[in-house]
Protein backbone atom coordinates (compact mmCIF):
# COMPACT_ATOMS: atom_id res chain seq x y z
CA UNK A 1 0.00 0.00 0.00
CA UNK A 2 1.44 3.40 -0.96
CA UNK A 3 1.66 6.31 1.43
CA UNK A 4 -1.04 8.14 -0.56
CA UNK A 5 -3.43 5.18 -0.37
CA UNK A 6 -2.80 4.90 3.37
CA UNK A 7 -3.47 8.61 3.79
CA UNK A 8 -6.67 8.30 1.75
CA UNK A 9 -7.88 5.36 3.82
CA UNK A 10 -7.14 7.30 6.97
CA UNK A 11 -9.13 10.28 5.72
CA UNK A 12 -12.03 7.99 4.74
CA UNK A 13 -11.93 6.35 8.15
CA UNK A 14 -11.93 9.77 9.82
CA UNK A 15 -14.86 10.84 7.66
CA UNK A 16 -16.82 7.76 8.57
CA UNK A 17 -16.03 8.18 12.26
CA UNK A 18 -17.04 11.83 12.16
CA UNK A 19 -20.31 11.06 10.39
CA UNK A 20 -21.02 8.16 12.68
CA UNK A 21 -20.33 10.22 15.80
CA UNK A 22 -22.57 13.02 14.52
CA UNK A 23 -25.42 10.62 13.77
CA UNK A 24 -24.95 8.97 17.16
CA UNK A 25 -25.20 12.38 18.83
CA UNK A 26 -28.48 13.05 17.00
CA UNK A 27 -29.84 9.70 18.18
CA UNK A 28 -28.62 10.27 21.73
CA UNK A 29 -30.44 13.59 21.84
CA UNK A 30 -33.65 11.68 21.21
CA UNK A 31 -32.80 9.22 23.95
CA UNK A 32 -32.04 6.51 21.38
CA UNK A 33 -28.96 4.66 22.64
CA UNK A 34 -29.56 1.45 20.68
CA UNK A 35 -26.61 0.35 18.59
CA UNK A 36 -26.70 0.86 14.83
CA UNK A 37 -24.70 -0.57 11.95
CA UNK A 38 -23.38 1.66 9.17
CA UNK A 39 -25.89 0.16 6.76
CA UNK A 40 -28.91 0.45 9.09
CA UNK A 41 -31.78 2.58 7.83
CA UNK A 42 -32.18 5.58 10.12
CA UNK A 43 -34.57 7.94 8.32
CA UNK A 44 -36.98 5.51 6.65
CA UNK A 45 -37.07 3.48 9.86
CA UNK A 46 -38.12 6.59 11.80
CA UNK A 47 -35.10 6.74 14.12
CA UNK A 48 -34.17 10.11 12.64
CA UNK A 49 -36.79 12.66 11.57
CA UNK A 50 -36.74 15.44 9.00
CA UNK A 51 -35.33 17.92 11.51
CA UNK A 52 -32.38 15.59 12.08
CA UNK A 53 -31.97 15.38 8.31
CA UNK A 54 -31.57 19.16 8.26
CA UNK A 55 -28.85 18.92 10.89
CA UNK A 56 -27.02 16.33 8.80
CA UNK A 57 -27.33 18.62 5.77
CA UNK A 58 -25.83 21.54 7.71
CA UNK A 59 -23.10 19.23 9.05
CA UNK A 60 -22.15 18.14 5.52
CA UNK A 61 -22.27 21.71 4.20
CA UNK A 62 -20.09 22.96 7.04
CA UNK A 63 -17.51 20.18 7.20
CA UNK A 64 -17.38 19.01 3.59
CA UNK A 65 -18.53 22.09 1.65
CA UNK A 66 -21.31 19.95 0.25
CA UNK A 67 -23.92 21.75 -1.88
CA UNK A 68 -27.28 20.02 -2.07
CA UNK A 69 -28.63 22.88 -4.17
CA UNK A 70 -26.78 21.49 -7.18
CA UNK A 71 -28.63 18.17 -7.26
CA UNK A 72 -32.11 16.82 -6.56
CA UNK A 73 -32.46 16.10 -2.86
CA UNK A 74 -34.10 13.08 -1.33
CA UNK A 75 -34.00 12.07 2.35
CA UNK A 76 -33.03 8.57 1.26
CA UNK A 77 -29.59 9.95 0.32
CA UNK A 78 -28.95 10.29 4.06
CA UNK A 79 -30.70 7.15 5.24
CA UNK A 80 -27.62 5.43 6.68
CA UNK A 81 -24.05 6.25 7.72
CA UNK A 82 -22.87 4.24 4.73
CA UNK A 83 -24.95 6.33 2.30
CA UNK A 84 -23.78 9.60 3.85
CA UNK A 85 -20.19 8.41 3.47
CA UNK A 86 -20.88 7.56 -0.17
CA UNK A 87 -22.13 11.09 -0.70
CA UNK A 88 -18.95 12.54 0.76
CA UNK A 89 -16.86 10.25 -1.43
CA UNK A 90 -18.48 11.55 -4.64
CA UNK A 91 -16.41 14.51 -5.88
Amino acid at each position, binding site marked *: MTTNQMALNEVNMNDQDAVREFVA*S*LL*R*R*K*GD*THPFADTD*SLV*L*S*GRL*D*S*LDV*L*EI*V*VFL*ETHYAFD*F*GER*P*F*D*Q*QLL*DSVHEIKDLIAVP
Partner: protein
Amino acid sequence: MLATAAVLFYFRGVRDPLVIVLLAGILFVPRHTWTLMAIGGIYWIPSLLKGGFGFEQRAIGTALALAAAALLWVIVHHWPAGFVGSSPRLALLGIFGAALGAALLTPAGGVSVVLWSLVAALSACLWIFSFALTDRAEGSPWSNAAMFFSFFPAALASTTPFFKRPSAMRRMAAKNAEERAIIQLKGLKLLAWSFLLSLVWGTLDTLWGAVGIPKLTDAIAASSAHHPPAWYLCWASLLAGFVDAVLRTAIWGDTVVAGCRLAGFKLLRNSYRPLESRTVVDFWNRYYYYFKELVADFFFYPVYMRCFKRHPRVRVLFATWVSVGLGVPLFHFVRDIDVVRQLGFWRALTGYHVYLCYATMLSIGIGVSQIRKMGAPRTPPGPGGSFWRARVLPISGVILFFCFLQVFDELRRTVPIREHLLFLTRLAGWAG
Protein backbone atom coordinates in the same frame (compact mmCIF):
# COMPACT_ATOMS: atom_id res chain seq x y z
CA MET B 1 -55.31 -13.65 10.07
CA LEU B 2 -57.15 -12.87 6.85
CA ALA B 3 -60.57 -13.47 8.43
CA THR B 4 -59.72 -11.18 11.36
CA ALA B 5 -58.47 -8.52 8.95
CA ALA B 6 -61.67 -8.83 6.89
CA VAL B 7 -63.87 -8.35 9.98
CA LEU B 8 -61.81 -5.40 11.27
CA PHE B 9 -61.74 -3.75 7.83
CA TYR B 10 -65.51 -4.18 7.57
CA PHE B 11 -66.09 -2.40 10.87
CA ARG B 12 -63.64 0.29 9.88
CA GLY B 13 -65.76 1.06 6.81
CA VAL B 14 -63.57 -0.70 4.22
CA ARG B 15 -66.21 -2.89 2.62
CA ASP B 16 -64.84 -3.31 -0.89
CA PRO B 17 -64.27 -7.11 -1.15
CA LEU B 18 -61.34 -6.44 -3.49
CA VAL B 19 -59.26 -5.35 -0.48
CA ILE B 20 -59.51 -8.82 1.06
CA VAL B 21 -59.17 -10.59 -2.30
CA LEU B 22 -55.92 -8.71 -2.93
CA LEU B 23 -54.59 -9.31 0.56
CA ALA B 24 -55.43 -13.00 0.20
CA GLY B 25 -53.51 -13.07 -3.09
CA ILE B 26 -50.55 -11.31 -1.46
CA LEU B 27 -50.65 -13.71 1.49
CA PHE B 28 -50.77 -16.89 -0.57
CA VAL B 29 -48.81 -15.82 -3.66
CA PRO B 30 -46.37 -13.21 -2.30
CA ARG B 31 -44.28 -13.19 -5.50
CA HIS B 32 -47.16 -11.36 -7.22
CA THR B 33 -47.46 -8.71 -4.48
CA TRP B 34 -46.50 -5.77 -6.69
CA THR B 35 -48.81 -6.75 -9.54
CA LEU B 36 -51.75 -7.24 -7.19
CA MET B 37 -51.14 -3.91 -5.50
CA ALA B 38 -50.85 -2.12 -8.84
CA ILE B 39 -54.18 -3.59 -10.00
CA GLY B 40 -55.94 -2.62 -6.76
CA GLY B 41 -54.46 0.85 -6.66
CA ILE B 42 -55.36 1.77 -10.24
CA TYR B 43 -58.82 0.23 -9.84
CA TRP B 44 -59.43 2.56 -6.87
CA ILE B 45 -58.23 5.81 -8.49
CA PRO B 46 -61.66 6.68 -10.01
CA SER B 47 -63.17 6.64 -6.50
CA LEU B 48 -60.87 9.54 -5.61
CA LEU B 49 -62.42 11.88 -8.18
CA LYS B 50 -64.54 14.55 -6.48
CA GLY B 51 -67.31 16.38 -8.28
CA GLY B 52 -70.27 14.03 -8.78
CA PHE B 53 -68.98 12.40 -11.96
CA GLY B 54 -70.59 9.27 -13.40
CA PHE B 55 -68.61 6.05 -13.74
CA GLU B 56 -67.74 6.62 -17.42
CA GLN B 57 -66.59 10.17 -16.77
CA ARG B 58 -64.42 8.98 -13.87
CA ALA B 59 -62.92 6.26 -16.07
CA ILE B 60 -62.19 8.73 -18.90
CA GLY B 61 -60.63 11.27 -16.52
CA THR B 62 -58.48 8.59 -14.91
CA ALA B 63 -57.36 7.21 -18.28
CA LEU B 64 -56.41 10.69 -19.53
CA ALA B 65 -54.50 11.50 -16.33
CA LEU B 66 -52.62 8.19 -16.46
CA ALA B 67 -51.81 8.80 -20.14
CA ALA B 68 -50.45 12.28 -19.33
CA ALA B 69 -48.33 10.85 -16.49
CA ALA B 70 -47.05 8.01 -18.71
CA LEU B 71 -46.06 10.52 -21.41
CA LEU B 72 -44.18 12.61 -18.87
CA TRP B 73 -42.50 9.47 -17.51
CA VAL B 74 -41.25 8.57 -21.00
CA ILE B 75 -39.95 12.12 -21.58
CA VAL B 76 -38.22 12.23 -18.18
CA HIS B 77 -36.46 8.92 -18.79
CA HIS B 78 -35.47 9.55 -22.40
CA TRP B 79 -34.54 13.23 -22.21
CA PRO B 80 -33.45 13.81 -18.59
CA ALA B 81 -31.52 16.97 -19.47
CA GLY B 82 -34.48 18.77 -21.06
CA PHE B 83 -36.87 21.10 -19.23
CA VAL B 84 -39.40 18.35 -18.45
CA GLY B 85 -36.66 15.92 -17.47
CA SER B 86 -35.01 18.34 -15.08
CA SER B 87 -38.26 19.83 -13.69
CA PRO B 88 -40.92 17.10 -13.91
CA ARG B 89 -42.91 18.58 -11.01
CA LEU B 90 -43.22 21.95 -12.72
CA ALA B 91 -44.19 20.21 -15.95
CA LEU B 92 -46.89 18.25 -14.13
CA LEU B 93 -48.20 21.39 -12.41
CA GLY B 94 -48.16 23.06 -15.82
CA ILE B 95 -50.32 20.29 -17.31
CA PHE B 96 -52.69 20.57 -14.35
CA GLY B 97 -52.90 24.35 -14.73
CA ALA B 98 -53.47 24.08 -18.48
CA ALA B 99 -56.24 21.49 -18.00
CA LEU B 100 -57.86 23.68 -15.34
CA GLY B 101 -57.65 26.75 -17.56
CA ALA B 102 -59.17 24.87 -20.49
CA ALA B 103 -61.96 23.49 -18.27
CA LEU B 104 -62.76 26.99 -16.95
CA LEU B 105 -62.84 28.51 -20.44
CA THR B 106 -64.82 25.75 -22.16
CA PRO B 107 -68.60 26.28 -22.24
CA ALA B 108 -70.69 23.70 -20.37
CA GLY B 109 -71.16 20.51 -22.37
CA GLY B 110 -69.55 17.19 -23.15
CA VAL B 111 -66.02 18.53 -23.69
CA SER B 112 -66.22 20.56 -20.49
CA VAL B 113 -67.19 17.48 -18.46
CA VAL B 114 -64.28 15.50 -19.91
CA LEU B 115 -61.88 18.34 -19.09
CA TRP B 116 -63.20 18.63 -15.54
CA SER B 117 -62.90 14.87 -15.06
CA LEU B 118 -59.27 15.12 -16.22
CA VAL B 119 -58.68 17.99 -13.77
CA ALA B 120 -60.27 15.94 -10.97
CA ALA B 121 -58.14 12.88 -11.79
CA LEU B 122 -54.96 14.96 -11.96
CA SER B 123 -55.81 16.63 -8.65
CA ALA B 124 -56.22 13.19 -7.07
CA CYS B 125 -52.94 11.81 -8.42
CA LEU B 126 -50.74 14.89 -8.77
CA TRP B 127 -48.50 14.18 -5.79
CA ILE B 128 -48.10 10.48 -6.38
CA PHE B 129 -47.26 11.15 -10.04
CA SER B 130 -44.71 13.72 -8.88
CA PHE B 131 -43.07 11.22 -6.52
CA ALA B 132 -42.90 8.61 -9.29
CA LEU B 133 -41.48 11.09 -11.81
CA THR B 134 -38.71 12.27 -9.47
CA ASP B 135 -37.53 8.80 -8.52
CA ARG B 136 -34.00 8.29 -9.75
CA ALA B 137 -34.03 4.53 -9.26
CA GLU B 138 -34.87 2.31 -12.19
CA GLY B 139 -38.15 0.46 -12.18
CA SER B 140 -40.89 -0.45 -14.59
CA PRO B 141 -43.93 1.87 -14.69
CA TRP B 142 -46.09 -1.14 -13.91
CA SER B 143 -44.31 -2.03 -10.67
CA ASN B 144 -44.23 1.66 -9.75
CA ALA B 145 -48.02 1.74 -10.08
CA ALA B 146 -48.17 -0.43 -6.94
CA MET B 147 -47.75 2.84 -5.01
CA PHE B 148 -51.42 3.53 -5.71
CA PHE B 149 -52.26 0.76 -3.24
CA SER B 150 -51.98 3.27 -0.40
CA PHE B 151 -55.05 5.05 -1.78
CA PHE B 152 -57.54 2.30 -0.90
CA PRO B 153 -61.20 2.61 -1.87
CA ALA B 154 -63.44 5.62 -1.33
CA ALA B 155 -63.87 5.17 2.44
CA LEU B 156 -60.16 5.80 3.01
CA ALA B 157 -59.35 7.78 -0.12
CA SER B 158 -56.75 10.51 0.22
CA THR B 159 -54.50 12.33 -2.19
CA THR B 160 -51.57 11.98 0.23
CA PRO B 161 -49.37 9.11 -0.94
CA PHE B 162 -48.04 6.91 1.86
CA PHE B 163 -45.39 5.09 -0.14
CA LYS B 164 -43.57 8.13 -1.52
CA ARG B 165 -41.15 6.98 -4.21
CA PRO B 166 -41.01 3.47 -5.65
CA SER B 167 -37.39 3.17 -4.50
CA ALA B 168 -38.44 3.94 -0.91
CA MET B 169 -41.22 1.41 -1.29
CA ARG B 170 -38.71 -1.27 -2.32
CA ARG B 171 -36.66 -0.54 0.79
CA MET B 172 -39.74 -0.92 2.96
CA ALA B 173 -40.73 -4.26 1.43
CA ALA B 174 -40.14 -7.36 3.56
CA LYS B 175 -36.84 -9.02 2.69
CA ASN B 176 -37.84 -12.58 3.52
CA ALA B 177 -40.80 -14.71 4.61
CA GLU B 178 -40.08 -14.33 8.31
CA GLU B 179 -39.87 -10.54 8.14
CA ARG B 180 -43.02 -10.48 6.02
CA ALA B 181 -44.92 -12.49 8.65
CA ILE B 182 -43.78 -10.14 11.44
CA ILE B 183 -44.81 -7.05 9.45
CA GLN B 184 -48.19 -8.59 8.62
CA LEU B 185 -48.85 -9.37 12.29
CA LYS B 186 -47.95 -5.79 13.17
CA GLY B 187 -50.40 -4.68 10.49
CA LEU B 188 -53.16 -6.74 12.05
CA LYS B 189 -52.35 -5.32 15.47
CA LEU B 190 -52.48 -1.77 14.10
CA LEU B 191 -55.81 -2.50 12.41
CA ALA B 192 -57.21 -3.69 15.75
CA TRP B 193 -55.85 -0.53 17.38
CA SER B 194 -57.55 1.70 14.79
CA PHE B 195 -60.79 -0.20 15.44
CA LEU B 196 -60.47 0.43 19.20
CA LEU B 197 -59.77 4.11 18.54
CA SER B 198 -62.86 4.29 16.34
CA LEU B 199 -64.92 2.97 19.28
CA VAL B 200 -63.43 5.67 21.51
CA TRP B 201 -64.17 8.31 18.87
CA GLY B 202 -67.79 7.12 18.51
CA THR B 203 -68.30 7.15 22.28
CA LEU B 204 -66.85 10.64 22.68
CA ASP B 205 -68.86 11.98 19.76
CA THR B 206 -72.08 10.67 21.31
CA LEU B 207 -71.09 11.99 24.71
CA TRP B 208 -70.36 15.48 23.40
CA GLY B 209 -73.69 15.55 21.61
CA ALA B 210 -75.48 14.37 24.76
CA VAL B 211 -74.02 17.10 26.98
CA GLY B 212 -74.69 19.78 24.35
CA ILE B 213 -71.20 20.60 23.13
CA PRO B 214 -71.63 22.00 19.61
CA LYS B 215 -69.40 21.13 16.66
CA LEU B 216 -66.85 23.87 16.03
CA THR B 217 -68.38 24.82 12.65
CA ASP B 218 -71.83 25.05 14.29
CA ALA B 219 -70.44 27.14 17.14
CA ILE B 220 -68.81 29.56 14.65
CA ALA B 221 -72.04 29.74 12.63
CA ALA B 222 -74.08 30.44 15.80
CA SER B 223 -71.55 33.09 16.80
CA SER B 224 -71.92 34.76 13.38
CA ALA B 225 -75.72 34.74 13.76
CA HIS B 226 -75.32 36.57 17.09
CA HIS B 227 -76.61 33.60 19.06
CA PRO B 228 -73.28 32.40 20.38
CA PRO B 229 -73.07 29.46 22.77
CA ALA B 230 -71.92 30.25 26.32
CA TRP B 231 -68.18 30.96 26.58
CA TYR B 232 -67.51 27.64 28.31
CA LEU B 233 -69.32 25.80 25.50
CA CYS B 234 -67.15 27.63 22.96
CA TRP B 235 -64.06 26.40 24.81
CA ALA B 236 -65.50 22.88 25.05
CA SER B 237 -66.27 22.99 21.33
CA LEU B 238 -62.69 24.02 20.59
CA LEU B 239 -61.19 21.21 22.68
CA ALA B 240 -63.68 18.63 21.40
CA GLY B 241 -62.89 19.69 17.82
CA PHE B 242 -59.18 19.22 18.45
CA VAL B 243 -59.61 15.76 19.99
CA ASP B 244 -61.97 14.83 17.15
CA ALA B 245 -59.40 15.85 14.50
CA VAL B 246 -56.57 13.98 16.24
CA LEU B 247 -58.66 10.81 16.61
CA ARG B 248 -60.01 10.89 13.06
CA THR B 249 -56.53 11.32 11.58
CA ALA B 250 -55.11 8.52 13.73
CA ILE B 251 -57.97 6.11 12.94
CA TRP B 252 -57.87 6.77 9.21
CA GLY B 253 -54.07 6.79 8.89
CA ASP B 254 -53.56 3.68 11.02
CA THR B 255 -56.08 1.78 8.89
CA VAL B 256 -54.24 2.69 5.67
CA VAL B 257 -50.84 1.83 7.18
CA ALA B 258 -52.26 -1.44 8.55
CA GLY B 259 -53.39 -2.39 5.02
CA CYS B 260 -49.94 -1.64 3.61
CA ARG B 261 -48.30 -3.66 6.40
CA LEU B 262 -50.64 -6.56 5.71
CA ALA B 263 -49.30 -6.39 2.15
CA GLY B 264 -45.78 -6.83 3.60
CA PHE B 265 -44.48 -3.25 3.65
CA LYS B 266 -42.81 -1.88 6.78
CA LEU B 267 -44.47 1.54 6.94
CA LEU B 268 -44.20 3.86 9.90
CA ARG B 269 -47.44 4.85 11.61
CA ASN B 270 -49.17 7.95 10.33
CA SER B 271 -49.98 9.27 13.82
CA TYR B 272 -47.67 8.39 16.67
CA ARG B 273 -48.67 9.64 20.14
CA PRO B 274 -49.32 13.22 18.99
CA LEU B 275 -50.68 14.24 22.38
CA GLU B 276 -47.25 13.63 23.93
CA SER B 277 -45.68 16.35 21.76
CA ARG B 278 -43.88 19.00 23.72
CA THR B 279 -43.14 21.29 20.79
CA VAL B 280 -45.19 22.53 17.84
CA VAL B 281 -42.81 20.96 15.32
CA ASP B 282 -42.95 17.64 17.18
CA PHE B 283 -46.75 17.65 16.97
CA TRP B 284 -46.57 18.47 13.23
CA ASN B 285 -44.26 15.46 12.82
CA ARG B 286 -46.39 13.07 14.88
CA TYR B 287 -49.93 14.11 13.94
CA TYR B 288 -50.00 13.42 10.19
CA TYR B 289 -46.58 12.04 9.31
CA TYR B 290 -47.13 11.33 5.60
CA PHE B 291 -48.54 14.76 4.85
CA LYS B 292 -45.61 16.34 6.68
CA GLU B 293 -43.26 14.20 4.57
CA LEU B 294 -44.98 15.31 1.37
CA VAL B 295 -44.71 18.98 2.32
CA ALA B 296 -41.05 18.57 3.33
CA ASP B 297 -40.19 16.73 0.14
CA PHE B 298 -41.94 19.00 -2.34
CA PHE B 299 -41.57 22.42 -0.79
CA PHE B 300 -39.25 22.53 2.22
CA TYR B 301 -36.08 20.79 1.01
CA PRO B 302 -35.89 22.46 -2.43
CA VAL B 303 -36.09 25.90 -0.81
CA TYR B 304 -33.90 25.03 2.18
CA MET B 305 -31.12 23.71 -0.06
CA ARG B 306 -31.00 26.84 -2.19
CA CYS B 307 -31.98 29.95 -0.20
CA PHE B 308 -30.33 31.96 2.61
CA LYS B 309 -27.59 29.43 3.25
CA ARG B 310 -25.50 31.91 5.21
CA HIS B 311 -28.32 32.83 7.54
CA PRO B 312 -29.39 29.65 9.38
CA ARG B 313 -32.46 31.07 11.13
CA VAL B 314 -33.76 32.98 8.12
CA ARG B 315 -33.11 29.87 6.06
CA VAL B 316 -35.33 27.70 8.29
CA LEU B 317 -38.04 30.34 8.65
CA PHE B 318 -38.21 31.08 4.92
CA ALA B 319 -38.28 27.41 3.89
CA THR B 320 -40.96 26.73 6.50
CA TRP B 321 -43.06 29.65 5.32
CA VAL B 322 -42.82 28.54 1.69
CA SER B 323 -43.62 24.92 2.54
CA VAL B 324 -46.33 25.41 5.16
CA GLY B 325 -47.55 28.93 4.42
CA LEU B 326 -47.78 28.37 0.64
CA GLY B 327 -47.32 24.63 0.03
CA VAL B 328 -50.06 23.45 2.38
CA PRO B 329 -52.68 25.82 0.86
CA LEU B 330 -51.55 24.79 -2.64
CA PHE B 331 -52.00 21.12 -1.73
CA HIS B 332 -55.55 21.74 -0.47
CA PHE B 333 -56.41 24.01 -3.39
CA VAL B 334 -55.44 21.23 -5.79
CA ARG B 335 -57.16 18.56 -3.68
CA ASP B 336 -60.44 20.50 -3.48
CA ILE B 337 -60.46 21.59 -7.10
CA ASP B 338 -64.18 20.75 -7.37
CA VAL B 339 -64.81 23.90 -5.27
CA VAL B 340 -63.44 25.93 -8.20
CA ARG B 341 -66.01 24.25 -10.44
CA GLN B 342 -68.80 25.06 -7.98
CA LEU B 343 -67.88 28.62 -6.99
CA GLY B 344 -65.88 29.79 -10.00
CA PHE B 345 -62.13 30.51 -9.95
CA TRP B 346 -62.26 34.01 -8.46
CA ARG B 347 -64.58 33.20 -5.56
CA ALA B 348 -62.69 30.01 -4.83
CA LEU B 349 -59.45 31.99 -4.73
CA THR B 350 -60.62 34.97 -2.66
CA GLY B 351 -62.58 32.72 -0.28
CA TYR B 352 -59.28 31.05 0.49
CA HIS B 353 -58.03 33.95 2.62
CA VAL B 354 -59.05 32.32 5.91
CA TYR B 355 -57.08 29.18 5.14
CA LEU B 356 -54.10 31.27 4.01
CA CYS B 357 -54.15 32.99 7.42
CA TYR B 358 -54.28 29.57 9.07
CA ALA B 359 -51.31 28.34 7.03
CA THR B 360 -49.30 31.50 7.74
CA MET B 361 -49.85 31.18 11.51
CA LEU B 362 -48.99 27.48 11.35
CA SER B 363 -45.79 28.22 9.43
CA ILE B 364 -44.72 30.80 12.01
CA GLY B 365 -45.40 28.34 14.86
CA ILE B 366 -43.50 25.52 13.19
CA GLY B 367 -40.64 27.78 12.06
CA VAL B 368 -40.03 29.23 15.54
CA SER B 369 -40.36 25.78 17.10
CA GLN B 370 -37.79 24.35 14.65
CA ILE B 371 -35.28 27.09 15.40
CA ARG B 372 -35.65 26.52 19.13
CA LYS B 373 -35.24 22.78 18.71
CA MET B 374 -32.25 23.03 16.40
CA GLY B 375 -30.49 25.27 18.88
CA ALA B 376 -31.07 22.82 21.73
CA PRO B 377 -27.99 21.08 23.21
CA ARG B 378 -27.24 17.65 21.74
CA THR B 379 -27.69 15.77 25.01
CA PRO B 380 -30.12 12.99 25.90
CA PRO B 381 -33.45 14.05 27.39
CA GLY B 382 -33.22 13.78 31.15
CA PRO B 383 -35.73 14.02 33.93
CA GLY B 384 -34.80 17.73 34.34
CA GLY B 385 -37.46 19.86 35.97
CA SER B 386 -40.69 18.90 37.62
CA PHE B 387 -43.32 16.82 35.87
CA TRP B 388 -45.40 19.99 35.64
CA ARG B 389 -42.67 22.03 33.91
CA ALA B 390 -41.22 19.21 31.85
CA ARG B 391 -44.43 17.73 30.51
CA VAL B 392 -47.73 19.33 31.52
CA LEU B 393 -46.91 22.93 30.56
CA PRO B 394 -45.25 22.26 27.19
CA ILE B 395 -47.89 19.70 26.13
CA SER B 396 -50.71 22.05 27.17
CA GLY B 397 -49.08 24.88 25.24
CA VAL B 398 -48.91 22.79 22.07
CA ILE B 399 -52.54 21.67 22.42
CA LEU B 400 -53.68 25.24 23.05
CA PHE B 401 -51.80 26.49 19.98
CA PHE B 402 -53.44 23.93 17.70
CA CYS B 403 -56.84 24.46 19.34
CA PHE B 404 -56.73 28.16 18.48
CA LEU B 405 -55.36 27.46 15.06
CA GLN B 406 -58.26 25.21 14.10
CA VAL B 407 -60.61 28.19 14.34
CA PHE B 408 -59.03 29.26 11.05
CA ASP B 409 -58.71 25.77 9.57
CA GLU B 410 -61.53 26.58 7.15
CA LEU B 411 -61.67 25.11 3.67
CA ARG B 412 -65.29 25.92 2.74
CA ARG B 413 -64.37 29.39 1.42
CA THR B 414 -67.82 30.82 2.10
CA VAL B 415 -67.25 32.10 5.65
CA PRO B 416 -65.27 35.37 5.86
CA ILE B 417 -62.45 35.78 8.37
CA ARG B 418 -64.37 38.27 10.53
CA GLU B 419 -66.67 35.41 11.60
CA HIS B 420 -63.69 33.45 12.83
CA LEU B 421 -62.25 36.46 14.64
CA LEU B 422 -65.66 37.07 16.19
CA PHE B 423 -65.63 33.53 17.51
CA LEU B 424 -62.31 34.21 19.25
CA THR B 425 -63.97 37.06 21.14
CA ARG B 426 -66.71 34.63 22.23
CA LEU B 427 -64.02 32.57 23.91
CA ALA B 428 -63.19 35.62 26.00
CA GLY B 429 -66.82 35.84 27.07
CA TRP B 430 -67.90 38.67 24.77
CA ALA B 431 -71.48 37.97 23.66
CA GLY B 432 -72.30 41.17 21.74
